[in-house]
């Protein structure tokens, strides 16, 4: 097996057993990048020098017998909206094209502490707004399964990097599906953790009450490995969970699904859902049943209002979070202006892409409309109601299964306009963000035209261990080889 085909867990073993050096690993990955990156365009910045330097440092430590971190030598790609000290962090926007953060995001600090090797920053939809990575100001990332199709978004670059074997692991962010959908499109494992499990300090904010950083990986076990490193209370993030969390997923990941009660909501399987995806999800449910789980078809009142609340909350928060970009302290600054007001207006108008401008306008309108006072509270109530309803469901069931996307990956430039599909697509993902629940997308099948299909496994608050258990069992049962060796 080639180095870039190995899972992170296998790489870790090899490094600890001195079968591979960190230098070997980094070298292999950069050779792979040199081979496929021009086709995939997953990266905005490559950290070649720093990666080799870090590899050398870790190899020295190992030679001296000094203990090294859990992720020692493992090359990891980071979505370009996560701040890395001294490395350009652009959010795929002209607004931050030359922005070099003077500090590390907390998750980056944790990666460094565990000796992970950051090999580059990945492409995304500008400021995480979008679901195809076509909204990047710099380049369009291609789907490793079909270079004429989108990798999904907004974390398309990270998903494509793992999917094209250009990174062993990757970090992305999910506000309304931005990890799960690209994971599904690229045939990799993507997890959105429970809101508050992973610190947001250093994640350039889009919608503060919905954003979460999460892992991309080739395998379920790798996902758990990376989550264990990045999760945990952060004193710098008031919204990060301060209670007790599970710190060891590995000890229970192989427990199997015997006796697990799994729900299949009927509302998710309706017109607009691609029939192959529908079948794939049903087949996975059957497999889980074979392994001892109990599958129930239930009705969960997932309503329209969830979407309304999502659009209101996310655009309002975004309009406020993005107001700081005015060219004065950092970021894009227009060249010709008459006064400071002009400077601010021009810098913002020229620095932001059309989708970002659209969302800021919508959010500003929502907050200013005079309706907000009344409707913001209603949106919050709706969130609370949704949380309570899901809680009721998880009182009876351990997990919920659903499709991730209603469609297979679409062609670049050909975004689906079918309102039913768009509606379903949102339904599968945004309600989960609203409720703050954890959810994973894992590959379960390949379509007739050789495109990956993902399954979404939704868990209760801080129930990532349950998700890992079911996903691991399913993965082993399916025993799929989704490695895109030839691109």
């Amino acid at each position, binding site marked *: 097996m080639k180095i870039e085909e190995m899972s992170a867990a296998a790489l870790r073993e090899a490094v600890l057993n001195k079968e591979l050096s960190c230098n070997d690993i980094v070298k292999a990955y950069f050779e792979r990048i040199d081979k496929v990156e021009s086709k995939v365009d997953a990266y905005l910045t490559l950290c070649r020098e720093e990666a080799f330097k870090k590899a050398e440092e870790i190899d020295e430590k190992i030679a001296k017998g000094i203990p090294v971190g859990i992720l020692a030598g493992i090359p990891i790609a980071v979505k370009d909206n996560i701040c890395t000290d001294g490395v350009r962090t652009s959010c795929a926007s002209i607004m931050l094209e030359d922005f070099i953060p003077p500090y590390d995001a907390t998750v980056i600090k944790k990666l460094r502490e565990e000796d992970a090797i950051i090999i580059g920053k990945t492409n995304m939809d500008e400021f995480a707004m979008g679901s195809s990575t076509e909204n990047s100001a710099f380049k369009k990332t291609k789907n490793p399964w079909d270079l004429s199709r989108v990798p999904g978004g907004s974390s398309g670059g990270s998903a494509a990097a793992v999917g094209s074997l250009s990174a062993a692991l990757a970090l992305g962010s999910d506000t309304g599906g931005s990890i799960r959908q690209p994971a599904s499109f690229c045939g990799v494992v993507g997890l959105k953790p429970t809101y508050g499990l992973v610190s947001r300090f250093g994640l350039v904010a889009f919608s503060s009450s919905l954003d979460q950083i999460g892992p991309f990986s080739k395998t379920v076990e790798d996902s758990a490995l990376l989550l264990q490193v990045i999760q945990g209370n952060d004193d710098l993030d008031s919204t990060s969970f301060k209670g007790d969390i599970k710190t060891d997923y590995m000890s229970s990941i192989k427990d199997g699904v015997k006796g697990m009660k799994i729900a299949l909501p009927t509302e998710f399987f309706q017109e607009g859902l691609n029939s192959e995806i529908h079948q794939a999800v049903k087949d996975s449910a059957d497999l889980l049943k074979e392994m001892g789980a109990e599958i129930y078809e239930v009705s969960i009142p997932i309503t329209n209002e969830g979407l309304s609340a999502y*659009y209101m909350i996310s655009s309002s928060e975004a309009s406020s979070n993005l*107001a700081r970009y005015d060219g004065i302290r950092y970021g894009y600054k227009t060249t010709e202006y008459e006064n400071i007001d002009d400077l601010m207006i021009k810098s913002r108008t020229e620095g932001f892409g059309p989708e970002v*401008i659209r969302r800021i306008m919508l959010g*500003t309108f929502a907050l200013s409309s005079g309706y907000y006072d009344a409707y913001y509270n209603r949106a919050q*109530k*709706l969130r*609370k109601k949704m949380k*309570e309803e899901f809680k009721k469901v998880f009182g009876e069931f351990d997990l919920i299964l659903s499709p991730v996307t209603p469609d297979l990956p679409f062609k670049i430039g050909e975004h689906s306009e079918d309102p039913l599909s768009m509606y379903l697509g949102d339904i599968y993902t945004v309600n989960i963000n609203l409720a703050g629940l954890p959810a994973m997308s894992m590959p379960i099948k390949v379509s007739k035209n050789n495109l990956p299909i993902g399954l979404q496994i939704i868990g209760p608050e801080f129930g990532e261990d349950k998700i890992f258990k079911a996903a691991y069992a399913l993965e082993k049962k399916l025993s799929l080889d989704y490695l895109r060796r030839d691109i």
Partner: protein
Amino acid sequence: MKIDKSTVDYIAKLAKLSLTDEKSEKMAKEFEAILTHFQSLNNADLDDVKIDYKDNIKPVFRKDETSVFEDKKKLFQNAKSLEGSSIKVPKIIE
């Protein structure tokens, strides 16, 4: 409810953005769509849900202790115009 261009222009001013007339027209339609979302929210049955912020009674505080971010040069490395250690901007008339 019909949204006209003047509303869009007002919002653009609030958001410190400048839109072309064509874009403004298009945006007006989008604003109308957002209002339908509000309507939908209005229709939801939420009478039995109470928001009183008591769901999270453990406030998050930090201690009143100071620390210094030493590398000021790094902190301001992205500023395009500095004068001494101050940020320089076109003259503001208050």
